[in-house]
């Protein structure tokens, strides 16, 4: 019966995969390709509803017992991440039909999106390094193919190649780290890594270097996944070259998969060795947000600007690791959720405008407020939210995130953590400069007089994202409560 139990726990993933397999066939059956989008939405929406009724409503409990060997854990932590991934999936799929109209292989396109989401949810559920790696690979390979979907375009092909090479490299590093962990601890179970790792790190002989190597390899491997500085160089090229809805998927969801993996390994697995890596990760967090924001300032292409902005956002989330309190984790999770909506929303506005023939250069956004008041308003909301201006979602989550650094810094001996908060708020102020520049283009400058209509399906996606961006800023009690439960679940308290 064990097999059935495991299958039961994997039920949503199996469902997603089933639809993914069916989609290419549907592609042959239907002339109207929008059917494919709806066939993709069906399992995603179903999964989302199930997750909401469990996490928010508490109407049912997922099957958690009897899954053995202990490879996955379905708890509030994985549920919240899955909810974020699936929401981004829904937004991306909704925006796609108009964007890829007339392209070939649309069935595969949607199937790959489903597979990518599947992989991400597996990472969030995993309690074992091997399963975690499998999830990373499922999502990774699907994303490589998706970035190259615009086959006629040189940029897209370049993006896919680059992403594939870098992604393969980072997977290799991660796998190497996992094998070292196995060598050190004799197990791949994340929760069991701690004792052996700390014993080895305090050893004086050569074994210490193995443990150090494992940690460094892991930081590098997952650092590539979340595009943390100095492992970020691939991100802007890939985000720029990939089809815009896919850029949204990569920035708002794929990256968060890396965050889930980092949280799991660092905060469960090797939290015992925190004093060995907290300063390094703190420095990396500050470096990541600063480099991301500084380079974003000089971008002229909106997708590249958003790419650098998501590098910076990853830096904000990284501060959770050196802080390591459950309040910080709750803040990090909250930021994952809000970022999922505001960043994917921003990319979908870009996608909707591309569909209507508006370019990707920031200068193309001149006078947009006159041409399409609704899209300009939505973009303004997303950008201000990304900058952390109240009362929008990005402010609420940054507030918790940065305040967790202040909280931890008040503990004697940890006062250096205050610099994470200071760096965070200074970077937020800096980011305001380039976000405001886009708003300025849209509202204060004159552009062409042609009206831009809102594509219907993409408009629905953007509406959904903007409603969430406002709602999570004005009233976030329920969601933050979930984040706290998820953080508690992560620490097993």
């Amino acid at each position, binding site marked *: 019966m064990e097999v059935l139990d495991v299958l039961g726990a994997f039920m949503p993933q199996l469902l997603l995969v089933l639809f993914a397999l069916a989609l290419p066939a549907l592609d042959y059956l239907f002339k109207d390709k929008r059917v494919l989008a709806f066939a993709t939405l069906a399992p995603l929406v179903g999964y989302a509803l199930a997750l909401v009724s469990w996490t928010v409503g508490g109407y049912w409990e997922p099957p958690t017992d009897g899954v053995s060997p202990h490879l996955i854990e379905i708890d509030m932590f994985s549920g919240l991440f899955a909810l974020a991934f699936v929401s981004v999936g829904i937004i991306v799929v909704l925006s796609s039909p108009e964007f890829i109209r007339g392209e070939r292989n649309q069935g595969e396109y949607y199937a790959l999106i489903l597979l990518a989401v599947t992989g991400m949810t597996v990472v969030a559920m995993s309690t074992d390094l091997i399963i975690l790696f499998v999830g990373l690979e499922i999502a990774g390979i699907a994303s490589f193919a998706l970035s190259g979907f615009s086959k006629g375009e040189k940029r897209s092909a370049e993006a896919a190649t680059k992403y594939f090479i870098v992604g393969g490299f980072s997977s290799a590093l991660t796998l190497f780290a996992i094998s070292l962990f196995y060598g050190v601890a004799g197990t791949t179970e994340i929760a069991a890594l701690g004792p052996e790792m700390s014993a080895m790190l305090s050893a004086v002989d050569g074994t210490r270097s193995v443990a150090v190597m494992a940690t460094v390899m892991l930081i590098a491997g997952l650092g590539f996944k979340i595009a943390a500085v100095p492992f970020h160089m691939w991100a802007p090229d890939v985000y720029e070259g990939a089809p815009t809805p896919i850029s949204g998927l990569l920035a708002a969801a794929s990256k968060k998969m890396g965050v889930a993996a980092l949280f799991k390994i660092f905060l469960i697995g090797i939290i015992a060795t925190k004093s060995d890596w907290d300063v390094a990760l703190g420095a990396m967090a500050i470096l990541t947000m600063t480099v991301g924001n500084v380079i974003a300032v000089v971008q002229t292409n909106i997708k590249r600007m958003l790419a650098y902005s998501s590098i910076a956002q990853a830096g904000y989330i990284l501060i959770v690791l050196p802080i390591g309190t459950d309040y910080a984790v709750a803040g990090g999770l909250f930021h994952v959720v809000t970022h999922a909506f505001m960043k994917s929303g921003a990319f979908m506005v870009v996608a909707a405008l591309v569909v209507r023939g508006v370019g990707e250069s920031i200068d193309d956004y001149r006078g947009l407020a006159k041409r399409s008041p609704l899209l300009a308003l939505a973009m303004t909301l997303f950008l201000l939210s990304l900058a952390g201006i109240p009362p929008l979602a990005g402010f609420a989550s940054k507030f918790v995130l940065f305040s967790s650094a202040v909280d931890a810094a008040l503990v004697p001996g940890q006062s250096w953590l205050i610099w994470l908060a200071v760096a965070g708020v200074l970077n937020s102020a800096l980011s305001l400069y380039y976000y405001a520049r886009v708003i300025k283009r849209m*509202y204060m400058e004159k552009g062409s007089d042609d009206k831009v209509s809102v594509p219907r399906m993409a408009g629905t996606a953007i509406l959904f994202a903007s409603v969430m961006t406002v709602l999570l800023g004005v009233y*976030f009690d329920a969601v933050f409560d979930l984040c706290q439960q998820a953080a508690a679940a992560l620490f097993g308290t």
Partner: protein
Amino acid sequence: MLENVPVLSLTILLPLVGALVTFTLGKRESMAKWVALAFSAAAFLLSLAVAFEFVVDPYSAAPGELDGYSNGYQFYESHVWIESLGINYIVGVDGISLPLFVLTTLLCMLSIIFSWDTDHRPKEYFGLMLILEVGVLGVFVALDYFMFYVFWEIVLIPMYLMIGIWGGPNKDYAAIKFFIYTHIASLAMLIAIMAMYFEAGLRTFSIEAIAEVSVDFSSGLQLAIFAAMFFGFGVKLPMVPFHTWLPDAHVEAPTAGSVLLAGLLLKMGGYGLIRVAIPSLPSGAEDMVFVMAAIAVASILYGAILCLAQADLKKMVAYSSISHMGFVLLGYATLGELGVVAGVFQMFAHGLVTAVLFMMCGVVQHKCGTRMIPLLGGLASRMPVAATLMTVGFLASLGLPGLVSFAAEFMVFAAMFFKWGMWIFLPITAVAVTAAYYLWALQRSMFGPMTNRIETSHVRDVDWYEGVPVAVLIVLIAVFGVFPALVFSRIGPAVEIALRAFGGG
């Protein structure tokens, strides 16, 4: 009459609804000003009702006599907002916030009337003004740190857009400088708020509740938090040397934007210091007394001297704001009841007076096409009403006895004399400088011979929508100049409460 009515929330809500209506007017753009006026007038009437129902000295009233009264705040409302973080929706007014609350609704309404001829994107213009009103009103009544910060930041966006869309030639630079400069200051305040929240450990953002604990924080921590807050509020005030955003923003902003910026936004800084920073962190404030006093005196003197050098009428008025807001800080720095009351009253007075000054700058710009003092001259014969209004405004601003600023500045000097004795000769020299730059500017622009450097044949006198708001303000300047006790009597008891931690002030 107002029992069980959430009148403060309604006052905040009205402009918000008005803004939404204004934005969604569609093609009926000419309706925008009427809608905005209706909603801002309704908000003004509500705030007047609050002012008249306000119990002057609630602290001596018997318990149970006052509805919606808590800890000295009246019209108190409290609802849970974000339970998991201890964030509440708490509003209330006391004698410190009441004058500023009424000032806000008044100035917003008058600014809307003053902008009656705006025809460039009127929907956005009037809508943004109402959003700005929501933010400022929220700041003055919020009693929860989170709420306070949210409203504080909401103010930035409409002002950024107002400068950026309806501003002068150099608006891009001024708008982004204003936005980022004041945003950085807010973030310093934000970190201070976070530190207070966690150190208090009460799991609530209630300003009152945290203040009860924060007075006992260690003096080092108090100093650190106070310094961060002082920076956050001081930039808004603005204080030398963090004042440079102000002249840029003012010169480029449209007239109504300048009125709201100087009349209300600067007050947010002064209000924050006395609502939050000083009562909550007494030891921090005491440690910083000399820094505050030095910066205040520097602002007063430096602002005044810079005024002498300005050729642009509006820039001169902008620098005069720096000088006059320095009095607020100087009053606070005495940390005594007299000085703090005077500081709060100075905010109220400056709000009335500076609105007149900026409106008159707008009139000159409008009618003559320039504000450069050397190009003007002898305008009084062309625009006698404008010249009269401007003269009264300038006299009020330089502290003529009988007008509102005199009472405030005199009390600041008195408070400083009691505390530091002869040092008052430093700020008092500014009074002479102030009189000099105002009278000199008045003489060169309005009186004296016609210069004929600009075409003056087409120059008309003020229009009704410009004259009426200024006239209303001038009446108020005179009324409160003769009867300052109308406001003092309300500020006094509240300040006494605010300074409890200083051992009776």
